[in-house]
């Protein structure tokens, strides 16, 4: 391993809080990636008449199991369950609710935490824990996608400005100044009401503003590094501009960018939560943390909704910030490994 990488890794590990946060976050993320296998209203495996079936991947009609209707089997129905159990067995996920499953027994909704719904149900009778798992996943996936895309655009834009300087830089800078002067939240709300927002629309709309967060630092690094002696040497060797940018200048800028990227991530997660909370976010019915918070606000008599939402969001953002701090330490040239 390159000694510089080794040193950075050592520094990252030396920040114990960040190192632990990183692992907790990774475990939670991988765990929620498989949400369908943890919280679902379909069994994981069905053995029916000696054959194995996997209803998560394939739809079976109720008739297939000897029921009355030619629609998808509703496995939570005691009638369907008894039909399957008579001819075989079922393995259920630990939580027998999907994010949209309504528990009609828990009445009136919202129903407080019980042995059936560990974190209670929301105001439409859906299991809060199941929605939390799906909501966490979509927040992180959204945050990651937005961070990566805005980092790519931001680094590219910053690189072009900083490396070529002069008029390119001047025009680009003025454009960014005007663009960042737009009232972000209002533009988002207006755009969100023009289209029917889904995951990709929201990503695109938020991307309009988040790509600028990295351009400034990357531009500054490129401005500085384009006059380094080894860049001049490469130019004197006749190396092409593009290769100089990638090979000689970009690694310098990546240090500054890497330090900022986790902070962009926490910003992205917060932005999605905000939009969901305001009702301009993901389509109705999607499990999301912002929507859970909104329910908490609308149902002050059901404190488990607000508390759950608040604690999970606070914990998730804290984890990301702790990891960010460790990343920042890792790239700090003055930090000493103890």
């Amino acid at each position, binding site marked *: 391993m390159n000694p510089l990488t080794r040193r950075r890794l050592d520094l990252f590990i030396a920040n114990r809080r960040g190192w632990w946060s990183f692992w907790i976050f990774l475990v939670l993320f991988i765990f929620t990636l498989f949400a369908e296998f943890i919280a679902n209203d379909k069994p994981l495996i069905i053995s029916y008449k000696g054959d194995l079936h996997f209803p998560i991947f394939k739809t079976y009609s109720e008739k297939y199991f000897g029921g009355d209707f030619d629609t998808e089997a509703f496995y939570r129905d005691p009638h369907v369950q008894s039909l399957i159990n008579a001819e075989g067995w079922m393995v259920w996920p630990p939580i027998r609710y999907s994010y949209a499953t309504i528990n009609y027994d828990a009445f009136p909704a919202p129903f407080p935490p019980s042995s059936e719904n560990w974190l209670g149900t929301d105001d439409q009778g859906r299991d809060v824990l199941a929605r939390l798992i799906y909501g966490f996943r979509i927040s992180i996936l959204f945050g990651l996608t937005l961070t990566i895309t805005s980092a790519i655009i931001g680094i590219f834009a910053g690189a072009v400005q900083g490396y070529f300087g002069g008029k390119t830089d001047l025009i680009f800078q003025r454009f960014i100044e005007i663009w960042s002067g737009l009232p972000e939240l209002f533009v988002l709300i207006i755009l969100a009401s023009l289209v029917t927002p889904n995951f990709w629309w929201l990503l695109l709309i938020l991307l309009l503003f988040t790509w600028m967060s990295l351009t400034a630092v990357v531009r500054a690094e490129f401005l500085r590094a384009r006059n380094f002696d080894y860049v001049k*040497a490469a130019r004197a060797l006749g190396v092409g501009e593009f290769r100089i940018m990638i090979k000689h200048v970009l690694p310098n800028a990546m240090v500054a960018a890497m330090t900022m990227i986790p902070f962009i991530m926490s910003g992205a997660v917060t932005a999605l939560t905000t939009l969901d909370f305001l009702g301009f976010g993901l389509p109705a019915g999607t499990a999301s943390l912002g929507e859970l918070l909104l329910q908490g606000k609308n149902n002050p008599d059901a404190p488990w909704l607000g508390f759950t939402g608040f604690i999970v969001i606070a914990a998730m953002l804290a984890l990301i910030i702790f990891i960010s701090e460790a990343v920042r330490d890792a790239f700090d040239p003055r930090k000493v490994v103890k």
Partner: protein
Amino acid sequence: MTLLSVQNLSLTFRHKDRAVEAVKNVSFTIEKGEMLAIVGESGSGKSLSALACMGLQPPAAAVSGSITLEGKEVIGAPESTLRSIRGKEISMVFQEPMTALNPLHTIGKQIAEMLGKTDISKIHELLESVGLGHFKDRLHSYPHQLSGGERQRVMIAMAIANNPSLLIADEPTTAVDVTVQAKILKLIKELQQSRKMAVIFITHDLTVVKKLADRVAIMKQGEIVEQGKVSEIFAAPKHPYTQKLLSSEPKGEAVPLPAAPHVLMACESLKVHFPIKKGVFGRVASYVKAVDDITLSIPKGSTLGLVGESGSGKSTLGFALLRLLKSQGRIVYLPAPDASPVQLDQLRGEKLKPLRCHMQPVFQDPYASLNPRMNIQQIIEEGILVHFPELSQKARDAMVDGILQEVGLPADIKTRFPHEFSGGQRQRISIARAMVLKPSFVVLDEPTSALDLTVQSTIIDLLKNLQTKHGLTYIFISHDLRVVRAISHRIAVLYKGKILEEGTTKQIFESAKEDYTKNLIKAAMLE
């Protein structure tokens, strides 16, 4: 009478389970009113030892031993005692006057801060004593309005404000031009004598030591290898390292020229002007004339030394000839006597690219000129990949091996990274990067200035060997006239972007016409 006594001083940095002893068992004493020079190469622990006398060593360092100032122990003394020592009994002048002065405060305020009160007459008196008498009505100037030499004088005024009994000067003239250097050194010597002040002078420049100091301590890798009277040490050095140091002053002269060489590179009324824009619409108000109307011709196989103070345009001229900067005026390159001349200033971009391998630069700072993320093979190979993309990996390896051998480096270093090498080795690597393309014209931009004295002469020897072997043509840019003399056939003295004087090395050193040149030579040789 002994003023300061340092006994068995050691400074250790712990890094994980590794301990680095930066200063090992150093002992020296300094008498009242005496000047002690501490000489050593970079990293030899000379600055650290001096900082420890004021309790200013980095907090990460573990200190052992004893430092007594007029009988009082400094090591382990409480912070309040140390504060009363600093500035009052021991004060310090740093290397870089731009960063050592606070840019947001006027010089008057900063001197007053040292005095503890605003005593205008005292400030005037101090300025007078450091030769800034004409600054009396300019107490409201900010550091950026002063020249490097003036800033260094203000620093000295601050350092002597409280009549300290010991002044520590940490390479106070490294960042200033030679002519300024001579004046600052003279000032320090005068102050030492008139105020009966002891001075610890940290430097790597032996000429300065010979001229100024009473006693000298030579440091190497954290240890004092030899100390004693300057006259005795210079006359009869005992330790092999001291002998090596004293014998490594650049000497010798340029390699013999081939008979009747043709002019390889020439420029006619070359100008590099940077526009100064004013107003909203960027109207060009005036120009900074970095290089102004220079005509030169350099015969093949010879070295042209470019000398001048910082800002005289010598580097700009070098890079303009390499077509790395925009310039006006003709630049003509003639690869062989019977070849047709190439007018470089007419070429740009892709047309210029094939010619790039004929002309290469070598930079001053070997720490900045190698990409820290590339290994040696990648660094040297980069140019080959551009100019000879058809070569196989095997052929490229052979070229890299060949050039490494030529610059005196083992071939097994190819997978290592620049930070694993010393300054001198790095400079060899950057020479290898330039030479692997077999250029005919090389601009050497202060290639030895960032190196230690013992390494400087080996690099000069290497450059001369390469020149004889391949018939290379050099432009050697330097402010150090001693080095320039050792390699150049001709010397051009630059002043404010113009050539003030040009002639053979012998002419310039023995019968310079211009006073400026004479002063430059005098200052450099400290005669």
